C-alpha cells in the first residue's frame, strides 16, 4: 500500500483517483442493470416519502383534534363531584415524532393513547397493527426501510464485480501494470461506486423533500436540523460500510459470482435474519411478561402488598388510626379533614408505588431488550442503525416511555387536584355550613362545576431532547463507527493483497 510511486505528487494522485472514479462511474451508469435498479429505487423511495408525509400530516391533524376534543370533554363534563370528574378522566394522545414521516419506527406497534383515570394507571392501548391485516407484518413502506434494506443491495449490485470482474476480464493486470498504487485504486473505485449510488439516492431524497414541502407538512421538534444531520451521517456511514465490504469481498473473491453470492448472503443475514433473531434472543436474556401475567401480578400486589410488604388496605387502616389519634377523635366523621377524599388520595399514593414498580420494570425490560439488540449490532450494522433512526425520528421506545411517563404524571396531578379540591370543599362546607364558589350540594354529595375541572392544566408532553436521544444511542453510533473503520481496513487489506489472477 506504499505510495512511493506517487511520492511528492498529491495533485497527480488526486487526478489519478478521479480518473479511476469517473471510469468506474461511467461503466456502472452505462450498464443496463443500473437503469432499472435506479428506477425501482427511485419509485419506491419517492412513494415511501410521500405516503409517509401524508400519513404524518393526517396523524398530526387527528392527534391534535382528538387531544383538544378530549380536553374539552373533560372540562365540560357537567357538574359533578370532583372525584367523579377524576373517574371520568381524560385521554393523552401521543404526538407524532418529528421525523416519523421518514421512519415510522414502532408507531404501528405501540399504543398511542392512554386513558388517565382515578385509581388506575392504564397501559397505552390499541397498537394500530392490531387493526391491520397480517400482511402488514411484511414491513412498513417508509424511507428508512428503503435505505436500510434496499440501499445495501443496490451498493452490492453496483460494486460486486469492481475487482473480481476486472480480474476475470483480465483488465486488472493491465491496470496494476500501469503503476497505480493500490490505495489510489481503492479510493478511486470507492468514489466511483459511491457516486453511482448517490446518483440514485440523493435526487430521490431531494425530490421527496420537494414533494413534502409542497404538501406543506412541516416537521417539528427539538433541534430539527441537527437531527437531520445526524440521521444523514448514520445512513451515509451505513452505506459506506456496505460499499467497503463489497469492495473488500470483490477483491478477495475468486470470481464475481462468488463476490455477489457472498455479499447477498451477508445482506440477507444482516437485514432480514439478524433483526428477528436479535429480537428473539433479547427476549430470552431479558424476559418481559404477557398481559395476563402483568395484570394479575400487579393486581395481586395491590391486594397483598408489594414484595411481601403490608397490603395497602392494612396500611390505610394504620394511617386512619394515626389520624384518629392525632386529632383525638373516635370516628372518621369527627375528623377536621374529609376522610373520604383523604383516604382515596392515600390509597392513590400507595398505588403509585405499585404502579411505578410494575410499569418501570416493564419499560426497563423493553429498553434492556433493545440494548441487547443494539449490542448484537457487532454482527449486523443494521441493528444499531435502525435504533438510531427510530430514535432521531422520535418513533422509538425512549419517546414512547417518555410519553407514557408524562401521561402518568398528568394522571396523578389530575387525581390529586380533584381529591384535594374535594377535601377543601368539604372543610369549607363544614366550617361555613354554606356553599362557596363553584360548589353546590345535592342530596349529600358535593358537586363541582367546570371551573373546578379547569384547575387541572391540559396535558403537555415534552419529547426527549436531542441530547437524551444521543445519550441513549451513542453506543449505537460507536458500533457503526467501528464497523466503518473495520470495513475500510478490510478493504485496504484485501486490495493490498490483490493479485491480477486467481491462483
Amino acid at each position, binding site marked *: 500500500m506504499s505510495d512511493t510511486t506517487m511520492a511528492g505528487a498529491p495533485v497527480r494522485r488526486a487526478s489519478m483517483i478521479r480518473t479511476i472514479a469517473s471510469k468506474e462511474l461511467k461503466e456502472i451508469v452505462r450498464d443496463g442493470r443500473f437503469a432499472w435498479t435506479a428506477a425501482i429505487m427511485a419509485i419506491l423511495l419517492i412513494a415511501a416519502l410521500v405516503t409517509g408525509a401524508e400519513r404524518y400530516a393526517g396523524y398530526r391533524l387527528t392527534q391534535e383534534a382528538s387531544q383538544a376534543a378530549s380536553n374539552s370533554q373533560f372540562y365540560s*363534563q357537567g357538574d359533578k363531584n370532583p372525584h367523579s370528574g377524576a373517574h371520568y378522566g381524560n385521554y393523552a394522545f401521543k404526538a407524532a415524532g418529528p421525523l416519523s414521516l421518514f421512519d415510522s419506527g414502532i408507531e404501528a406497534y405501540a399504543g398511542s393513547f392512554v386513558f388517565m383515570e382515578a385509581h388506575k394507571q392504564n397501559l397505552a392501548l390499541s397498537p394500530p397493527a392490531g387493526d*391491520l391485516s397480517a400482511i402488514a*407484518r411484511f414491513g412498513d413502506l417508509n424511507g428508512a426501510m428503503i435505505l436500510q434494506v434496499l440501499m445495501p443491495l443496490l451498493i452490492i449490485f453496483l460494486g460486486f464485480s469492481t475487482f473480481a470482474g476486472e480480474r476475470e476480464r483480465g483488465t486488472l493486470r493491465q491496470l496494476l501494470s500501469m503503476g497505480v498504487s493500490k490505495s489510489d485504486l481503492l479510493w478511486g473505485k470507492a468514489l466511483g461506486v459511491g457516486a453511482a449510488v448517490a446518483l440514485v439516492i440523493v435526487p430521490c431524497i431531494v425530490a421527496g423533500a420537494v414533494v413534502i414541502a409542497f404538501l406543506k407538512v412541516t416537521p417539528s421538534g427539538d433541534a430539527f436540523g441537527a437531527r437531520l444531520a445526524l440521521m444523514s451521517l448514520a445512513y451515509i456511514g451505513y452505506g459506506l460500510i456496505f460499499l467497503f465490504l463489497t469492495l473488500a469481498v470483490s477483491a478477495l473473491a475468486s470470481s464475481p459470482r462468488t463476490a455477489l453470492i457472498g455479499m447477498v*448472503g451477508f445482506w440477507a443475514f444482516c437485514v432480514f435474519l439478524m433483526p428477528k433473531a436479535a429480537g428473539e434472543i433479547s427476549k430470552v436474556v431479558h424476559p418481559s411478561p404477557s398481559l395476563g401475567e402483568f395484570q394479575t401480578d400487579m393486581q395481586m400486589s395491590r391486594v397483598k402488598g408489594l414484595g411481601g410488604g403490608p397490603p395497602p388496605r392494612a396500611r390505610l387502616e394504620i394511617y386512619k388510626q394515626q389520624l384518629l389519634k392525632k386529632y383525638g377523635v373516635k370516628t372518621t366523621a369527627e375528623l377536621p379533614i374529609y376522610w373520604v377524599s383523604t383516604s382515596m388520595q392515600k390509597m392513590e399514593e400507595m398505588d403509585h408505588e405499585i404502579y411505578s414498580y410494575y410499569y418501570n420494570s416493564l419499560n426497563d425490560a423493553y429498553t434492556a431488550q433493545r440494548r441487547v439488540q443494539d449490542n448484537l449490532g457487532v454482527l449486523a450494522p443494521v441493528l444499531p442503525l435502525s435504533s438510531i433512526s427510530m430514535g432521531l425520528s422520535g418513533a422509538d421506545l425512549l419517546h414512547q416511555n417518555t410519553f407514557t411517563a408524562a401521561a402518568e404524571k398528568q394522571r396523578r396531578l389530575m387525581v390529586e387536584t380533584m381529591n384535594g379540591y374535594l377535601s377543601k370543599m368539604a372543610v369549607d362546607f363544614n366550617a361555613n355550613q354554606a356553599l362557596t364558589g363553584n360548589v353546590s350540594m345535592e342530596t349529600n354529595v358535593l358537586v363541582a362545576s367546570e371551573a373546578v375541572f379547569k384547575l387541572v392544566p391540559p396535558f403537555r408532553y415534552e419529547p426527549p431532547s436531542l441530547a437524551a436521544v444521543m445519550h441513549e444511542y451513542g453506543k449505537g453510533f460507536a458500533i457503526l463507527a467501528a464497523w466503518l473503520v473495520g470495513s475500510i481496513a478490510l478493504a485496504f487489506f484485501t486490495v493490498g493483497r490483490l493479485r491480477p489472477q486467481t491462483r
Partner: protein
Amino acid sequence: MYALILRHETRGLTRTPAFAFILVLLAAAMTFGAWSAAQTLGREHRGAQAVVAAADKQRGKLARDVAGYERKIAASGGVYEVAAFNHGGGAIPAGTNAGTVGSTAVAPAILPQTGLSTFAVGQSDIQLSYIPVTSNSIITVTRDSELGNPVNLKRGAFDISFVVIFLLPIFILAISYDMLSSEKERGTLAMVLSHPISLRKLMLSKMLSRAAIILAVVLAAGFGSLLAVGSNLSSPDTWIRFGLWLSATLLYSMFWFGLAVLVNSISKNSSTNGVVLAGSWLVLVVVAPTLVSVLATTTYPAPSRFEFITQSRVVQTEVEKEYMKALDKYYYDHAEFAPKSGGEADFLATSLAKNDAVEKAMMPLYNKFRSQLAKQDEMVASFQFVSPAIMMQRTLNDVSGASAARYAHFIDQVIEFRGVWTKYFTSRFLAEKALRSADYRRFPKFEYREEPVSAVIGRTAPSLIGLFALMSVVLGAAFAALRRYQVASR
C-alpha cells in the same frame, strides 16, 4: 443414465462444503424458528393461565363466602338476603348479588393453540388469545391487546413461517443460481451433453437432486418441531394441517427452483443470474407484499382509534345527561358509598341502562373496525396472486391457526358468550334473586368451538392453487426455454 446423473449430482453436492454449510444453516434456522415460536406461545400460554388462575381464585372466594353465609342462615333460620351492588365485607357477602358477580367475576375466553401453532406466530403476538369476559360492554371486554415490546413486534417473529417464506428461497437460489451457467463457464457442459442425455433431463435431475436434499431437511426439521413442542399427534386435525403446510412448502420451493432454472435458461452468466434472482427475491418477498399491504390498508383503512375514543365520550356524556343525576354518577363510580336503601335499585337499573345505551350507540363504529379488517383481508386474498410470499403467508397463518378468519371466529364466539353471561346475571339481578353457592357451579362457561378443518382447507385452497399455477407456469417456461438454449458459446 438418468439415475446415474442424479446420483452423480447428489454425490457432488454433498461433497461441496458450501452446500453442506447451507443445509446446516437451514436446519439451524428451522430449529431456532420452532424454538423461539414455542417461547412466544409459551409466554402467551402463561398469560392465559394467570388469567384463569386469578379468575378461579376470585370466584372460589366469592363462592366460599356465599356458602358460609348459607350455612349461617341455615343455622340461624334468618332470611337469605342479597348484598347491595358492589358492597362487600358486610354481613351479607358480595357474592350474593348477581350484578356484582356478573361485572367483577371473570369468565376467561381462551382461544386454544393448534397442533401447528409454532409454525406461524402470525398476529397472535398482538391479538389477545385469552379474553376476560364480564358483563361490561363488549367494547371494554375486547379492548386489550397482548403485551409485547413494540420493537420486537416491529421486527417480527423468527418462526418457521419466516424461515420458509424468507430464508428458504435464499438457500434454494444460492444452490441453484448457477446450476447451468457454472457448467458452461467451466466448459464442462458440452462434455456432459456429449453423453446420451438431453439438456432438459440434465437440468431436471440437477433440480430434483437439490430439491430432494433441501426438502428432506425442511421436512425433518418441520416434523421434529412438531414432536418437540408436544403437539397432539393423535388428532387428524394436526396431520391435515401438517399436510397442508408440507404441500404449500413444496409448491413454494419448487417455484423458486423453477425460477432459478428459468433464469439459467435465458441468461448469460452466473453473475447476471445472481443479480436477477436476488432482485426477484427482493421484489417478490419484500416489495410486492409491502405494496399490497399499503394498497389494502389505504383502501380500507381502520377507523381512527382516536376518533373512536372521542366519539365514545360524546355518546357517554349524552347518555349520562339523559339517564343519570349527579348523585347517580357519583355512586356509579363508588357504589360502596351508595346508601343501602331507597333509590338504589333505580340507580342500578339506570346504570345498566346507561351502559347498554352507550354500547348500542358505539356498536356501528366498533363493528367498522372488524369489517374494515375483514375487507383488508379480502383484498389481500384477491391480490395474493402477485406474490408467492403472500400466498405462503396466508396459507401458513391458516394452517397454524393464526389467521384473521380464525381470530374473527373466536371474537364472534366471545361476543355471543358475553351476551349469554350478561343475560344470566342481569336477569337474576333485576329480579333481585340472590345467588346461592349452587349457582356458582352453573355459571355459563366459555367453550371454544373450533372451526372444522374443512374451513381451513377451503381458505387455503385458493393460495395453494395459486402457488401450484405459478410453479407450473415458471417450470413450464423454464423447460420450454431450455429447448432454445445454446450449449456452445455464440
